[in-house]
C-alpha cells in the first residue's frame, strides 16, 4: 500500500520550478502540493513594493536566463526536499514588467509537519535569490532606472 502511494505521488506531481511571463495564481499552484502524507503547507509570495532604499518605485522589470534558472532551481528544490523531508516543493518566478502589488515569485512546500514546511520554504526562497540567474531593474517614479544589487548601478542610472 505504501509503495502504491509513493508511485501514485510521483506520477501526479513533480517538484518543479517554472519561469513565466504570465501572472502567478497562488491558489491554483497550492493545489499541486496536496498529498495524503502532508499535514502542513507553507508558501511565500514576493510582491512588488513601491519603494527601495528611499526611492519611489514605479514598476520592476525581471530578466531571467531560463535554461540555467530552471536547472539551478531544480537543484534547490531537490536540496530542500532532501534536507527537510518535504512531500513536494514548487516555485514559480515572473519575468517582464511587473506593477506594484504583483506577485513576482511564489514558493510552496508541503510536508508531514510544519517545522519542515517552514524551513524548506525559507531555504528555497533564500537560495533562489542568490543562485538563480535572474535580474531585476527598478524603474523609479522620477524617470530613471537601475539594476538591483549591482554595485555600480547608481552610477549607471546616473549615466543613462
Amino acid at each position, binding site marked *: 500500500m505504501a509503495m502504491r502511494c509513493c508511485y501514485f505521488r510521483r506520477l501526479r506531481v513533480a517538484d518543479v520550478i517554472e519561469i513565466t511571463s504570465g501572472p502567478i495564481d497562488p491558489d491554483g499552484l497550492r493545489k499541486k502540493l496536496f498529498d495524503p502524507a502532508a499535514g502542513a503547507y507553507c508558501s511565500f509570495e*514576493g510582491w512588488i513594493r513601491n519603494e527601495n532604499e528611499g526611492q519611489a518605485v514605479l514598476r520592476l522589470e*525581471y*530578466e*531571467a*536566463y531560463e*535554461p*540555467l*534558472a530552471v*536547472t*539551478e532551481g531544480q537543484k534547490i528544490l531537490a536540496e530542500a526536499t532532501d534536507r527537510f523531508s518535504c512531500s513536494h516543493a514548487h516555485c514559480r*518566478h515572473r519575468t517582464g514588467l511587473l506593477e506594484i502589488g504583483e506577485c*513576482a*515569485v511564489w514558493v510552496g512546500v508541503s510536508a508531514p509537519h510544519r517545522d519542515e514546511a517552514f524551513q524548506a520554504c525559507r531555504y528555497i*526562497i533564500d537560495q*533562489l*535569490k*542568490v*543562485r*538563480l*540567474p*535572474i*535580474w*531585476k*531593474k527598478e524603474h523609479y517614479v522620477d524617470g530613471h532606472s537601475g*539594476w*538591483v*544589487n*549591482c*554595485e*555600480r*548601478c547608481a552610477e*549607471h542610472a546616473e549615466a*543613462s
Partner: protein
Amino acid sequence: MKTITVRYFAMFREHAGVDEETLTLDAATAADVFSATRERHGSAEPDGHCKVAINDVMADWDSPVSDGDEVLLFPPVAGG
C-alpha cells in the same frame, strides 16, 4: 588564440550594447574572458559578485575555456 562566444545579461548587456559577440582571445580561464570583455567595454565590475557559466553549465572563474566555448557572463543576481 581561441574563438569564444560571449553572452551578456542584464547590466552587462547594456554596457556591451550587444546580446553576444564572438571574440578571438588568448584566454586560459573564464576569468581571462571576463577581464578581456571588461577592457573591451570599459566596465569595471569585480569578479566576486558576478557568476559565469560555460556552455550552459555553471562554472568558476578559474574554470578552463576551450576553443569554441560559449561563456555566459552574469552580473550580480537579484531574483525574488
